[in-house]
């Protein structure tokens, strides 16, 4: 890529579309390795991590061009390490990040600015946090979910300190965990669902020979890409309630996701592409 940027596209965009706006330039303070955007639709703000400067940048929702962030969380008190993800709770006005280097989840007030300490820290052996890469919050059902190296952990939203998770999704039937290629997770509070990407290991002897990366069939490292949907309360080695599998038809480009519940769309990014899947089944507000 050239420079750090956020490109915005119309939800109806298709093909080689022109962005509706681009947030880029030195004043934005973005880094080239940007692994997350959180949208606060209540305050109309965007939160973006900068891992190299150990900062969380908060922009105006309609930011465009070389526009400086409204607020920057950065400094010794923040305890931010290589922060590469951020989630926003617009109801309780909190902002949180899963800290991969130190097995913790740091929670800040949403309007935090400058060198401020977290208001809560989830950290310790009971939490089972192990190289967490993503945290998502459900402000309606008061939950947070964290993606780990081998598991997806669900805690009560206000848990703090060394607390055990209430649900743990882990095991070969789940196919999730960063070890399995999971790079993102989403919660759909109204339908009480957890959505995460992962990979399914093909039978031994049929695995592609490439040592790393992805082959033309969409196999990468551990197996074949899929996006799985679980119900709240699922715990243990549980297969998804529903799944979208990689195939020459589905062409899942990666495992970075966004939800558009109003349009019943699951948006998936990766491989330099953004794909939009219309999945009304997933966005039903009640499930069996």
């Amino acid at each position, binding site marked *: *890529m*050239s*420079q750090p*940027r956020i*490109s*915005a*596209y*119309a*939800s*109806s965009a*298709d*093909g*080689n*579309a022109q*962005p*509706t706006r681009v947030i880029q330039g030195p004043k934005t*303070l973005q880094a080239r390795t940007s692994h*997350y955007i959180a*949208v606060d639709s209540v305050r109309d703000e*965007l939160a973006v991590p900068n*891992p*190299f*400067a*150990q900062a969380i940048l908060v922009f105006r*929702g309609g930011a465009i061009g070389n526009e400086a962030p409204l607020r920057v969380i950065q*400094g*010794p*008190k923040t*305890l*931010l*390490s*290589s922060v590469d993800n951020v989630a926003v709770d617009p109801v309780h006005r909190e902002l949180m990040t899963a800290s*991969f280097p*130190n097995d913790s989840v740091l929670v800040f007030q949403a309007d935090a600015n400058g060198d401020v300490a977290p208001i809560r820290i989830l950290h310790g052996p009971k939490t089972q946090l192990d*190289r967490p890469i993503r945290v998502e919050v459900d402000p309606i059902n008061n939950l947070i979910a964290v993606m780990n190296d081998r598991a997806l952990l669900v805690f009560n939203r206000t848990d703090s300190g060394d607390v055990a998770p209430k649900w743990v999704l882990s095991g070969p039937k789940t196919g999730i965990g960063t070890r399995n290629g999971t790079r993102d997770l989403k919660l759909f509070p109204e339908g009480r669902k957890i959505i995460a990407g992962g990979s399914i290991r093909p039978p031994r002897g049929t695995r592609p020979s490439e040592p*790393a*990366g992805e082959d*033309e069939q969409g196999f990468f490292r551990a197996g074949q890409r899929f996006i*799985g949907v679980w*119900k709240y309360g*699922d715990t*243990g080695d549980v*297969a998804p*309630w529903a*799944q979208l599998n990689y*195939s020459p*038809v*589905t062409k899942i480009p990666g495992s*970075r996701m*966004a939800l558009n519940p*109003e349009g019943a769309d699951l*948006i998936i990014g*990766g*491989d*330099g592409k*953004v*794909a939009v*899947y219309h*999945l009304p*089944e997933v966005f039903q507000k009640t499930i069996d």
Partner: protein
Amino acid sequence: MVVPARSWRVTVGILLVAVVCIQVRAQQRSNASERRPQVLDRAPARMIADPNPVFRAVVLDAEHGEVFMANDKESAGTSVLVYPTQFPATNRIMEPKRRIAGPKTDLGMVCGLALSIEHGELYSVSGETGTLNVYPLDSTGNVGPARRLRGVMPRASAGVFLDVKNDELFITTEHVNRISIYPRTFQEDQEPLRFIQGPASGLGDPHGIYVDSTTNEIFVSNHGNWRETQPGEGEVRGPDSLTRTSLGYNVPGRVVPLNPSTGKFLGPSITVHSRSASGNTAPLRIIHGPHTQLSLPDGIYRDPMSGELIVANTGDDSVLFFAKDAAGDVAPVRVLKGPATKIKGPVGAIIDAKRNELWVASWDSHVAAVFPRMANGNIAPLRVIRTASENAPLASMGRIGAVAYDPKRKEILAPN
């Protein structure tokens, strides 16, 4: 003591409800564990993607009249594209003479290129995997690398430069603010000969690199995102690795204590280091400050005749030229910039000394433009190579690290 019948009935009722609840939960668990997922497979309703390759790093083989450019655009299939240095001027899309691409090449996100005419080798660095691959210079198609450095180099490495005189490869790594130096003849698990890393080094999110073996100087462009790093950080040492940050998601590494954060925005800079420096060593000088006009500087090169430093200045669509001994907050001696130049998101710049020409690779506009060596201001290039038509949208999505949805504006947001 006589227990009233009503109390018994209440107790029995509670017990019955509890038993039913336990059975229902057990049934739910059983159902979940034996669950057959509902299959949602269907084609995407829409797919946003730019199918056109882009130009990132650029290197020249002046002897054989070939220019090699890295295309790191995944939606176009990452590749190394090889074009002739001389061709009739055209504004049409130009097909490369040959391309190195395909699953066997293991190019990954090819960020940096170097070449050796003497040894007939092309070197590519993948930022994604932390690999350095070597291909025969005349490679074409889906060919595997002849040699590969893997498993020791930190991830997110980007810039690479071959110091021909001293037969050493220099590599920058963004994540851990580091310059690693390897022998050109490295083996797969080669340890670096030395490295420059640590808080004194002045390195902050380093990108491009150039080594002048005459003056024994290393020039590095820095975006300025900084945190304190420890010498040795980013090296893959299994559970003893210093931090996990740049090791890849599945490597355990040491857990970092919840210590005070050290991150800062230092602003963009060019740091100049001694070629033989090692460890946590301060730079010889730094070009830094508002007069420099530096803005997200990337590719860097030194004019072999004038000694001027040439910087692809991504953040303001320009190429900056600094005096050979520039230091501190100094203005560039020349600036190549403006709509006539077709420079948009420049990431690479190099001199063809044989033909007295300057090449500039622009990522955003899908254009490599050739100028007279001393070009200045808003001038049109002598000729261009383009991989997309002039009216095609600018390249805007690189490696997509995330997507988000803005319900207010009904927009999909994608950062690099």
